């Protein structure tokens, strides 16, 4: 299989404009004849569904939550980047492009990233027009802050609830289309498989989570906007329902999965409190703008943090990275925190935590200014831990947060299955091996509002379609397979809960395929995953019935897919014998412990093809070339 990225010819600045001109248009009168399925209603999905319906297409949107407004984009706190240069501090499309390619450690496709930076400015316009209440200055203009390692202030924010406000903007735009009858919304509906007819994605099979009924839905194109797979670790900052099922099923139907080992561990999360922990909570990394990270210089120092004088504190990021200090990128901040804790300097329960201290910022700016910036985050922290960060430093520890890997897509955001488009976190395209802060919201909305609505038109205008309906044999067959698998889960009737398997898988992945990885560890993990998967299918107890609201059954299906997907993640991590971004192979590091890339061998996208159960997946490579941003080793010293 040859991977054709379909990047347009010409200088990078003109590629998107030229491509928009060259793409075929669908006649306005014909648009209503095309039906598009959008799976997922987060920033990418809701933005796409609304925009496609505005254009005149028939759209159906599916989400597993009880309302499309609850998609996990809602939890993003810090902000959204855009190259508006409102602060006159030297920002530009080129700089945002450069920062994103470099921040992604040179493992993203240049043309996509440039387009993302270009479109970023339109996103802010769009959101303001929808009524997103971004923070403003007293003069009435939009406010910005510097965020997550950027040296310009290009981040737009709405208190600590930027994701919520952007999602509500997209949700409301989609709600308008639902009210007009242009979008048909299916909440509490989970996509359980993709249907491919004559090489084209022509629909999906869905389980109604209230009645348990399994039904088929046909379309001319399918868009997956189903988010990332951080929940493979069980404990992550993702919502409990986030899962890999839609993308994994599409993978098993022929879509290549790219760079699955590229995961992002976020440095500022609240540490786990005990065995009962069901998820981890992120504290926005905007806190690193004013908070200082430190550990005691003495191992296992039992003193209260306030009793430790400055001379006995190690502000280790400021010490190791004088230029960037506490604002080093996420992967670097996470690894250094882990090192400190591995070396015995950690604080809090089990020594798995470092301090994030606001003492100096409060002394400099005053309690009010800090409360204005971070008030809701401080409250959130206090609710969870019972401690007030304005008097006691926060304790933070890294946690899985975002997954850069995803289904492989070309420049048109189409996967290797014709008609199957993948947008937002679910695709692999723009963040390389590490995502910069405030870039996920940007990518989700760029894909949904401004890229897919054009590129999908080109596909629809050029493809040939045979008529299909849900009685088509291909749909009948996939439906039967879905029903059989569901019954199989119920029939195991063992003795262990689904969660207990998920926890075990999560621990395994965190240990062997988390913040730092080794060849030997990954090889062992692959065997352990296979064994765990076998035990799952022998010992799991689901309970209840299929024709009912059955949350245990929902979880079982998702965990069964994670148990297959985890193996591919480890295979990918094993084959990539270099360190880059969030993927740190202990065998490949510089003498001072920084990630060492191997551009000679690994400057490519690893796209994996499913070959069948118990058969090794096939690796396909999309070479990455860097013509606009010079390849260099990242340095934040």
């Amino acid at each position, binding site marked *: 299989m040859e991977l054709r990225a379909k990047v347009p010819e010409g200088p990078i600045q003109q590629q998107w404009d030229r491509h928009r001109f060259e793409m075929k248009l669908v006649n306005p009168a014909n648009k209503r004849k095309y039906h598009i399925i959008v799976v997922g209603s987060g920033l990418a999905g809701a933005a796409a569904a609304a925009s496609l319906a505005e254009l005149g297409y028939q759209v159906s949107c599916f989400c597993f939550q009880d309302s499309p407004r609850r998609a996990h984009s809602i939890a993003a706190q810090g902000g959204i980047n855009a190259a508006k240069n409102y602060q006159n501090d030297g920002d530009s499309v080129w700089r945002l492009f450069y920062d994103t390619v470099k921040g992604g450690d040179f493992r993203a496709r240049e043309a996509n990233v440039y387009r993302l930076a270009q479109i970023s400015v339109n996103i802010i316009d769009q959101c*303001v027009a929808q009524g997103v*209440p971004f923070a403003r200055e007293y003069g009435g203009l*939009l406010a910005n802050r510097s965020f997550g390692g950027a040296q310009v202030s290009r981040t737009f924010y*709405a208190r600590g609830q930027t994701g919520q406000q952007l999602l*509500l903007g997209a949700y409301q*735009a989609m709600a*308008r289309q639902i009210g007009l009858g242009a979008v048909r919304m299916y909440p509490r509906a989970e996509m359980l498989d993709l249907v491919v007819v004559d090489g084209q994605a022509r629909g999906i099979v869905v389980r109604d989570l209230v009645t348990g009924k399994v039904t088929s839905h046909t379309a001319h194109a399918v868009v997956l906007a189903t988010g990332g797979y951080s929940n493979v670790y069980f404990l992550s900052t993702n919502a409990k329902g986030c899962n890999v099922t839609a993308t994994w099923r599409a993978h098993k139907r022929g879509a290549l999965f790219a760079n699955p080992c590229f995961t992002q561990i976020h440095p500022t999360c609240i540490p786990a409190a005990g065995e009962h922990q069901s998820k981890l909570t992120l504290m926005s990394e905007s806190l690193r703008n004013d908070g200082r990270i430190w550990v005691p210089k003495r191992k296992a120092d039992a003193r209260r943090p306030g009793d430790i004088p400055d001379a006995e504190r190690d502000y280790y990021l400021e010490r190791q990275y004088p230029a960037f200090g506490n604002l080093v990128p996420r992967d670097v901040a996470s690894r250094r925190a882990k090192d400190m804790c591995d070396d015995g300097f950690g604080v809090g329960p089990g020594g798995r935590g470092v301090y994030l201290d606001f003492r100096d910022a409060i002394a400099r700016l005053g309690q009010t200014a800090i409360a204005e910036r971070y008030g809701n985050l401080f409250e959130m922290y206090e*609710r*969870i831990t019972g401690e007030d960060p304005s008097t006691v430093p926060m304790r933070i520890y890294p946690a899985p947060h975002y997954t850069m890997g995803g289904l492989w897509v070309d420049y048109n955001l189409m996967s290797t299955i014709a008609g199957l488009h993948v947008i937002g976190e679910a695709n692999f395209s723009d963040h390389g091996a590490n995502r910069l802060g405030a870039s996920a919201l940007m990518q989700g909305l760029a894909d949904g509002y401004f890229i897919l609505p054009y590129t999908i038109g080109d596909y629809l205008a050029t493809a040939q379609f045979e008529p299909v309906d849900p009685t088509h044999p291909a749909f009948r067959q996939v439906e039967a397979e879905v029903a059989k698998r569901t019954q199989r889960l119920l029939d195991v009737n063992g003795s262990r809960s689904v969660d207990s398997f998920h926890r075990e898988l999560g621990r395994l992945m965190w240990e062997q395929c988390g913040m730092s990885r080794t060849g030997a560890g990954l090889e062992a993990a692959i065997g352990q995953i296979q064994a765990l998967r076998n035990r799952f299918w022998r010992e799991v107890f689901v309970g209840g019935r299929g024709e009912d*609201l059955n949350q245990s059954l929902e979880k079982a299906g998702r965990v069964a897919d994670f148990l297959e997907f985890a193996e591919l993640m480890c295979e990918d991590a094993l084959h990539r014998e270099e360190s880059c971004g969030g993927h740190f192979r202990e065998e490949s590091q510089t003498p001072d412990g920084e990630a060492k890339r191997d551009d000679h061998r690994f400057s490519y996208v690893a796209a994996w093809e499913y070959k069948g159960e118990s058969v090794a997946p096939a690796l396909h490579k999309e070479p990455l070339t860097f013509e606009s941003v010079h390849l260099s080793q990242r340095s934040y010293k």
Partner: protein
Amino acid sequence: MRLTLHVWRQAGPAERGGFARYEIPDASPDMSFLELLDVLNEQLIAAREEPIAFDHDCREGICGSCGVVINGRPHGPRKATTACQLHLRHFQDGEQIWVEPWRAKAFPVLKDLVVDRGAFDRIVQAGGFITARTGSAPEANAIPIAKRDADRAMDAAACIGCGACVAACPNASAMLFVAAKVSHLGALPQGQPERYRRVVRMVDVMDAEGFGACTNHGECMAACPKEISIDFIAQLNRDLLKATLTPPREGRAWSGAA
């Protein structure tokens, strides 16, 4: 800590429900309330009983999925705290805890603690938006918005749509939810063209969905995990009055295309 839970069990929308009693012998004070339900469900699964169905997702107080009435109070005893962020350190060892679903005609119970809040979505679909077709937006800084107005819009926009306001209201009114959206969009210049049409349409659908009327009890504000103020209900009433009492230039009789 040892806790006794009395949890509402109901097999389906048409079935009769009732409280079931469960003992949790060893809960940790650092657990969240939903983690307590997780632990209870693990106990039930170990005994091969059907676990309790409850809505939840982000578990960080922002998605609005979770929501149960705990000891008679939506989201439990803590101010400005969703059930997922409520921790057991706020309960006493040996306490009896009663857990019920939201109770409102417009939120039918689907199973156990899960209710159907689709009515909220339908209210938003009726008018809870600003019409801004993708691609048609002017430059973002073209219209300055006073910080005071932007802040007020954000105060209202913080609503997570969980439905605690409805569950807390003796009339099961959705006024706080609707008022928050009307006030958020009405506080911004972008929201002005549809301002009066919006309030009329949203209130019409709210009534049609079977929510009760507001009689100023203020229970909604006390229960709201995001502390949305009932000042916004006053704002809604002002807008509604204007929309319906003035000549039909914009209000109920307005019938332009959406």
